[in-house]
């Protein structure tokens, strides 16, 4: 990877934030994750040149920074949409209908998880447990949680997001009222259950 394809520099304000962060730790390398957050907030992702910049600032190597960036799921080593929609797919959310929410987003956005819409507005991702298990299904849009989702609420959210520009500071969670029993039933996973004596259609998906 060529880390020097283009020069990278942070704004003066972000550079000051980096100085403050580095000063808090007994060792420079410890500032790695918080500094990478500053970079991502400003650049939208962490380009190779930024990895080289961080490496120099923390007296490390670009390879080490890249290893860290690719280890953590929230750090992006490639451009993503303005809105990164990360739907929790782990057990408690799946039990309440996460699969249906992911399928709905796939249909509405016309993309598969991991992809970005052509207009660069939305990236769809499946992610692991976001500690909102009692209010699933849910998703994280950039750093903001939307909980107790239904397909209708997802539509309303997409509509709202098409109208406005993202702000990093907007993080207070939106926790909708709990859906009723019927709404859940429509989202529950379709599966074949012998033990319960009822047989629902089992959806067989080819696994890649």
């Amino acid at each position, binding site marked *: 990877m060529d880390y020097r394809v283009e020069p990278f520099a942070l704004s003066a304000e972000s550079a000051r934030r980096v100085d403050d962060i580095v000063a808090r730790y007994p*060792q420079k390398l410890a500032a790695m994750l918080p500094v990478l*957050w500053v970079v991502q907030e400003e650049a939208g992702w962490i380009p190779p040149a930024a990895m080289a910049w961080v490496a120099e600032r923390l007296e490390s190597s670009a390879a080490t920074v890249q290893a860290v960036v690719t280890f953590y799921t929230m750090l992006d080593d490639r451009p993503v949409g303005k809105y990164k929609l990360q739907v929790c797919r782990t057990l408690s959310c799946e039990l309440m209908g996460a699969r249906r929410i992911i399928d709905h987003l796939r249909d509405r956005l016309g993309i598969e998880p991991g992809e970005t819409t052509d207009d660069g507005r939305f990236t769809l991702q499946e992610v692991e*447990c976001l*500690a909102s298990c009692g209010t699933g299904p849910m998703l994280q849009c950039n*750093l903001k949680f939307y909980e107790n989702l239904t397909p209708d609420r997802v539509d309303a959210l997409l509509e709202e997001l098409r109208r406005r520009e993202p702000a990093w500071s907007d993080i207070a*969670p939106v926790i909708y009222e709990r859906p009723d029993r019927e709404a859940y039933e429509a989202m*529950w996973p379709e599966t074949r259950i*012998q033990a319960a004596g009822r047989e629902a259609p089992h959806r067989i998906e080819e*696994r890649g």
Partner: protein
Amino acid sequence: MAAPRILMQRALDRPGESHTLPAYEAAGGYRAVRKALGMDPVKITDEVKASGLRGRGGAGFPTGTKWSFTPRESEKPKYLVCNSDESEPGTFKDRWLLENDPHVVIEGMMIAAIAIDCHLAFNYFRGEFAYPEARWRAALDEAYGAGYLGKGIFGSDYDLEIVTHSGAGAYIAGEETGLLESLEGKKAMPRNKPPFPAVEGLFRSPTVINNTETLAVVPWIIENGAAAYVQYGTEKSRGTKLWSCSGPINRPGVYEVELGVEMMGFLEEQCGGLMEGVGLKGVIPGGSSVPVMTPDECRGARMDYEGLRERGSLVGSGGFIVIGDNVSAVDCLLNLAHFYAHESCGQCTPCREGCGWIEQLVGRVRDGRGSQADLERILRLSDAMAGKTICALADALAWPSVAFIKKYPQDFAALCPDPVDLESLAAVVGEHDHILPKAS
């Protein structure tokens, strides 16, 4: 059952403002740390030891004992780290604490720091906790503003700084030595132990790492005394515990009850029972890493460290996941196998390879292409993973794998095109279920 509220009362009394300094102090906050400043640090640790408080993050190790492992005299600085990397599937109680009562976590960290003679402490947040972290940072600013942190806290000659650290998305960073690596700016790969963090932890210095909930209990114990705390709970499981409840139940959420309550009563009274038309298939009581319990195992089970072990499961982090009879055990296990395969850090071979293979094998069964031989492969693989790696992530998939196949074999058999002989499958389960937790 009247639920004592050591941790939740303040927030319930002052909804919408419990996270602020005035509300916390009006409820008696920051008295315990003033008391601790006047105590011999050894006495603070002794009091926490006497309370019987055990770590609420998962392992359940006695908190006071953990503190006492740090050397009294040390040439290197000593560090305290609060583990707010809450990522265990089914668990959201630390999020609740940080959003609703961040000052009690600050005060707990202060007291723990004084006990071990630490002057620089860290709170590590999972990267996805932007909002809980913002609440916490605001509380920390209030505490600094009031002179409760920094140079000479509360007018004493004790200096204490607390640094907030944001992670960036990695389940394994919640493992205590993985967290230390992450806090040092590296990939969150757990370390071999020994040396334990108490001797060689953050920046190779003596370090105590405690879960957020554990530290939140400490001010109450110091203020009211260990003797008051041991009145709650059972002989070996003292006090109360926060349970994060999810699944098809009528009242999901965080509940605080004494350790040792009966599980079906808890499911009815706190969780409001199952949603109409849904029967109970099982409960994963302590977060996704612990073995699932059947309704028979749930009935009469005491929700404490010994009681759940007797029923073949664990308290873990208290992530109480209720599974309805509207889903297949195969889907549950496939979901978890994907989680652990994704979250394995990759440094140990049994975990890196094993989690991925289990996911593929369960996926094959789910897709209607599996066989009894595949189920037996999953059992053998689980046995080859449990206890054979640097940290417990491999165990955390091995246990559910064996438990789900052992307890719901008919769900797996139903999806295999060729007949599965449940009797011979049970015999193979019997060769490998020794890896599951049991009464000690």
